[in-house]
């Protein structure tokens, strides 16, 4: 994450003159004297650059999809403001040549921009120092084509990550690959997982202290979930933590001190399942990971249990649909909190957790904010795992609240599944109150910007059998909009007051991530292709641009080698919500795309496929 060589190389004559001017002011020496002593100036410039390199990350770069370990997606670039955003113009574009859902964040480091496409997971590096940001190198990992058919929620990829001169990314066919960031030369490949059993890899890795953290996808195929740490230099596996099984497999040992009694016990990853069901019980680690360097703890969610028909797996089904805090060095769990025990509605817990220091009335607390698929925004003490608040941010019919004493989620009896019975008005539906689309947090407004959907569903649980390599679901789902509201909102959430500061209604689900800047602007994209900038304080629309396809990616901001601030986003509709277009589904069948097609029938008339990078700047 440090700024290396290119920074030194960019110390040019103008820079030296600027340094001379600065020194002249500071030392009151005549400029002409200083301008002559070039050696002295160069030395001063090197010192200045070295001081700048010590910051991690630099304000110029966007080295990982969430930008920082706290997963804030906050860009400290003040130039683009509420006053001038109206004149934001397209700076350059780049076609990815791929037609599926582009969910990745463009990554910027050391003067290059890196983008990874959906399957076939091509990585492009663009040279930001040259006009039009031409292609510097391209890497094609050539993943196995079979993987496409077992990626239930489109063949997406959430992005590469840059660290220490290397670029790391996952491929759909269960590989993690390290490349030399400047040349695209392959350094190592790590393979684990079998596409024939329905296992895939779509998440963006996180690099912590020379360890590359990666997890698998495929919970709907009954794949056993895991998170593993790889040595960034060699690709060697250092530790692996499963989400079910014995305490030894889950890496639960002496350091494990959960806050609630319900998370305590021996081998809960086995005993909270019917015999052997934990082996095919899903709960992949397919989402976002955050990291607190002070506590040396990583935070990650676990996926939903398989099958969706919950009557086939009585018990709490640990450690599914919950949050883990683990030590980054050994992988050992510090605490676990199950958000949705014995989940019945695909309330996967794998989406983002934002690490924030909150000034509560009782004193400052280190917390994580996790807007969950089950409809609550959780504010959790990230040291202990105690739930400080759990507040609904959408209409919820499946539960009535979270017990602060026991941490238990109280389910609504009338929405419980029974095999062969249609249960109507399940809110939130299987896609959750929110899904993978990551939120942003601004330390200036102290608001969390949550892109999410307002979708309910009607569903019937049906008996299903585990057949390796086929989906293990057992539910017929038809999603529908929440009565009386649009299909989506962007909610600005005040985690301190535990309420929404403001909300913006959107017709289509906002399946893109959010970005917030020091200019107090929130950026996000819509599935019909509008890229929008809102006033971060009140949600007023200040600027919008229509891209070629629907946006389901993650907007970012960076400072180019020319010193200007840029905003970048990938356009290219797809993902679970956009599969009706990306995979040409037939929306006469409401259960297509696991029930999402029932609410996305109009998307085919509103956008078309096509992956393209868009980068904007002030004129």
């Amino acid at each position, binding site marked *: 994450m440090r700024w290396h060589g290119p920074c030194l190389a960019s110390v040019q004559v103008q820079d030296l003159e600027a340094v001379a001017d600065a020194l002249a002011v500071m030392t009151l020496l005549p400029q002409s004297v200083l301008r002559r002593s070039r050696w002295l100036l160069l030395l001063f410039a090197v010192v200045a650059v070295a001081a700048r390199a010590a910051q991690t990350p630099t304000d110029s770069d966007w080295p990982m999809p969430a930008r920082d370990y706290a997963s804030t997606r906050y860009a400290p670039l003040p130039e683009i403001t509420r006053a001038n955003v109206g004149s934001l113009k397209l700076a350059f574009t780049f076609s990815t040549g791929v037609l599926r859902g582009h969910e990745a964040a463009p990554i910027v480091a050391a003067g290059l921009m890196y983008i990874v496409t959906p399957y076939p997971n091509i990585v492009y590096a663009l040279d930001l120092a040259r006009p039009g940001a031409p292609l510097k190198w391209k890497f094609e990992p050539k993943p196995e*084509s*079979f*993987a*496409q*058919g*077992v*990626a*239930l*929620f*489109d063949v997406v990829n959430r992005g590469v990550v840059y660290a220490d001169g290397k670029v790391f990314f996952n491929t759909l066919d269960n590989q993690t690959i390290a490349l030399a960031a400047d040349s695209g030369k392959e350094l190592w490949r790590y393979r684990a997982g079998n*596409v*024939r059993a329905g296992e895939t890899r779509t998440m963006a890795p996180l690099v912590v202290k020379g360890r590359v953290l990666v997890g698998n996808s495929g919970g*709907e195929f009954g794949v056993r979930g895991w998170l593993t740490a790889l040595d960034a230099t060699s690709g060697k596996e250092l530790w692996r933590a499963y989400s079910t099984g014995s305490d030894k497999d889950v890496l639960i040992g002496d350091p494990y001190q959960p806050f609630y009694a319900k998370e305590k016990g021996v081998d809960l990853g086995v005993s909270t399942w019917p015999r052997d069901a934990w082996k095919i019980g899903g709960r992949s680690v397919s989402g976002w990971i955050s990291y607190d360097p002070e506590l040396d703890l990583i935070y990650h969610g676990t996926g939903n249990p398989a099958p969706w028909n919950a009557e086939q797996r009585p018990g709490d089904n640990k450690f599914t649909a919950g949050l883990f805090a683990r030590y980054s060095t050994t992988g050992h769990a510090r605490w676990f909190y199950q958000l949705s025990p014995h989940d019945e509605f695909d309330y996967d817990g794998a989406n983002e957790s934002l690490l924030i220091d909150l000034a509560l009335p009782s004193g400052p607390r280190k917390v994580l904010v996790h807007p969950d698929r089950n409809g609550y925004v959780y504010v959790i003490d990230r040291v202990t795992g105690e739930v400080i608040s759990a507040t609904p941010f959408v209409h919820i019919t499946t539960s009535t609240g979270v017990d602060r004493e026991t941490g238990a989620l109280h389910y609504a009896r009338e929405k419980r599944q029974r095999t*062969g019975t*249609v249960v109507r008005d399940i809110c939130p539906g299987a896609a959750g109150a929110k899904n993978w689309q990551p939120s942003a947090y601004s330390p200036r407004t102290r608001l969390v910007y949550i892109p999410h959907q307002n979708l309910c569903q*009607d*569903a*019937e649980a*049906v008996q*299903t*059998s585990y*057949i390796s*390599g*086929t*989906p*293990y*679901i057992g539910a*017929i789902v*038809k999603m529908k909009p929440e009565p009386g509201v649009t299909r989506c909102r962007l909610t600005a959430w005040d985690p301190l007051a535990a309420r929404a500061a403001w909300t913006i209604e959107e017709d289509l689900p906002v399946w893109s991530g959010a970005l917030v800047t020091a200019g107090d602007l929130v950026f996000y994209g819509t599935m019909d292709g509008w890229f929008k900038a809102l006033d971060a304080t009140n949600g007023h629309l200040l600027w919008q641009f229509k891209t070629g396809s629907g946006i389901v990616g993650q907007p970012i901001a960076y400072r180019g080698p020319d010193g200007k601030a840029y905003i970048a986003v990938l356009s290219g509709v797809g993902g679970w919500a956009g*599969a009706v277009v990306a*995979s*040409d*589904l*037939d*929306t*006469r*069948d*409401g*259960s*297509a*795309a*696991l029930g999402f*097609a*029932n609410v996305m029938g109009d998307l085919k008339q509103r956008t078309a496929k096509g992956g393209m990078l868009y980068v904007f700047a002030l004129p």
Partner: protein
Amino acid sequence: MCSHYLDCAAVACALLMLAACEREKRDFNPPPAGASVGASADVAKMLDHYERNASALAAGKRLWTWYNCNGCHANGGGGSGPPLMDDVWIYGGDAMTIYRTISEGRPNGMPAFRGRVPEDQLWQLTAYVRSLSGLAPMDAVTNRDDAFLTRPPEAMLDQPDPERARPSAGSGQR
């Protein structure tokens, strides 16, 4: 006169019943000769035995859920697998090609079911897949759903152009 009318009615009934025989025929000793894959397979015989037979189509519909076909293809609308109720065929929509797709699998994620599913069930599934896009006879398709209805019944789906489902060279892979 009266008896003459009765005779006519009896003959008409008998004819109707004969016409409906194919529809209601249930064979408990499948599969017939020629059901195996290869050049020797008699596709016309297969169509008679499965695709024009309500019992086989109903069995195919039940197996569709049993073998988790719906996990990827939904009830024909598709998901991670392509939709099967439209008029687009990646590998070809004729019975023999669909049978091969199910039994041998395809490189973009379709698993092979040969050896996991009995031969006659493969043909029942083939017949049901064709019925999803209106390629099975309307008087034989099953219009009952045992579970939550997610799309119009088979007989109420738009009829495709039969030319579109002729054997193809297997081009147009996604």
